[in-house]
């Protein structure tokens, strides 16, 4: 018979946090920013079919970094929550804040009660009618939730990207200008091609479903625009 060793709770939490952080840092980064045209989300992602950025509801988008199967499970749960709520009440009653709180509770619970924490960082964004109404919530592996304004960076090499963004971001950016800017901030010294990126936007003022993926050819056009000017 084996007798389990006593492990101090501090040590247990520290080990779990380290484990999750390591997993997340291995993945590539993701950047979301508010601008006059809506909320732009750009991720480094060479895959065309395994998305990091997805639609949750009319004005709400989801983005995740880390282990794909884990954040995709969270994405589907978010869609299920939003659709059930919108069906039971009204489409107007579905909001990002409530969903972000549910994610935070779930991640927090897994972090404290399970053997293995989820190796993910997720973002819930909701575009408003005015840019002052935009919401972005970042939720970490342990359920820590933070409310971001302006821009949010998820995944590895986080600080460098934040630094690069601080100098260039402004609320009055147009969507077209924001795309090359985000690609540059993500890439740093590397020059990211459209095929390395996944981009989507929550369009401000959209009648109903505001989420739109930016296809490769359009992305290439927007990235090229910056270089020629």
């Amino acid at each position: 018979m084996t007798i389990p060793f006593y492990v101090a709770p501090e040590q247990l939490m520290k080990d779990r946090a380290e484990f999750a952080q390591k997993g997340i840092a291995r993945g590539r980064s993701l950047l979301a920013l508010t601008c006059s045209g809506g909320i732009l989300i750009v991720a480094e992602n060479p895959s065309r079919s395994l998305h990091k950025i997805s639609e949750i509801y009319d004005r709400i988008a989801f983005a995740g970094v880390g282990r794909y199967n884990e954040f995709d499970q969270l994405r589907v749960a978010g869609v299920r929550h939003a659709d059930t709520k919108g069906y039971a009440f009204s489409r107007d009653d579905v909001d990002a804040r409530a969903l972000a709180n549910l994610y935070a509770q779930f991640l927090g619970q897994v972090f404290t009660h399970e053997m293995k924490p989820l190796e993910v960082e997720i973002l819930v964004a909701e575009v408003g009618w005015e840019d002052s109404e935009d919401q972005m919530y970042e939720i970490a592996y342990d359920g820590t939730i933070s409310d971001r304004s302006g821009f949010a960076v998820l995944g590895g090499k986080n600080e460098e990207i934040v630094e690069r963004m601080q100098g260039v971001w402004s609320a009055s950016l147009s969507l077209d200008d924001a795309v090359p800017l985000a690609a540059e901030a993500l890439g740093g010294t590397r020059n990211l091609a459209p095929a390395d990126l996944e981009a989507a936007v929550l369009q401000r003022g959209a009648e109903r479903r505001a989420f739109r993926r930016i296809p490769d050819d359009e992305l290439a056009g927007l990235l090229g625009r910056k270089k020629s000017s």
Partner: protein
Amino acid sequence: MSSDQGFFSDVRGPVVPGGGLGKLAWDHRDASLGALPVFTATDDPGPSFGALLSGVGRDWRSAWMPAASAAGSLQQGRDREFQAPHATTVLALRFKDGVVMAGDRRATEGSFIAHRLMEKVLPADRHSGVAIAGVAGPATEMVKLFQTQLEHYEKVEGAELSLEGKANQLGQMVRENLAMAMQGLVVVPLFAGYDLHRHVGRIFTYDVTGGHYEELDFHATGSGGRDARAAVKARWRWDLERSDAINLAVQALYDAADEDAATGGPDAVRGIYPTVAVVTAAGFEKLGDEEVEQSFAEVIASKRESGRMP
């Protein structure tokens, strides 16, 4: 349910990691609203919204189906004081670039007019629409569930259902309603859309048992459906232009309203005109009142000119 993979297959409640503690924290009645709806692999409802509702303990059936006994008394009260509102004539016809769908705005309770503003032609998703005839309450609820289901599937799976897949889903919903239909609460939708794979407009009709059939050219259903069909039949061609197809739909509704008391005609005094929508590769587009009004004006003018009475 007979099939495990069906739209409304029953699944057990959601589970949460953490075992006992998690279970306590979950309220099955409102599971998807009070906590994140996460399922184990074996209980996962997949992309089906109906199964999801069952899984989180919300009985979707109660959404539009009154208790059978209540429906029975509704039926018995048919010729007496109480009747449920009915929606009347809807039609769909193919044209060169897709499909035109149209429906009048009247809902009746026996010989009374219950509503003058009812919308019976509704978008199902970006590239399809659904038109309803039959008992108004269950029909609108069915459409709401259908719209949610299509969008839910698209978001969960990351791909749209094929047009035939959508038609099939609606058939399953109509079939689920069969018990109610036997009690007199009949809902018979008309489904039409643009097939993005085949690049044509397609029309599907239903019977109360959920059977669905593809129509080649056009179809109309509801109390004025026969008259509307006759009107379309007389002038339909496969290569109709958009404006001609709209005029033909309007003409058919005019004829249906002329013959059928339950079908509403254009109401110039209140400015209420039938709903007309066009579904093409560009998507579902509901026409503005001005355009429908204009089309009615053209139809009426041509009737006067040719000396034909309405």
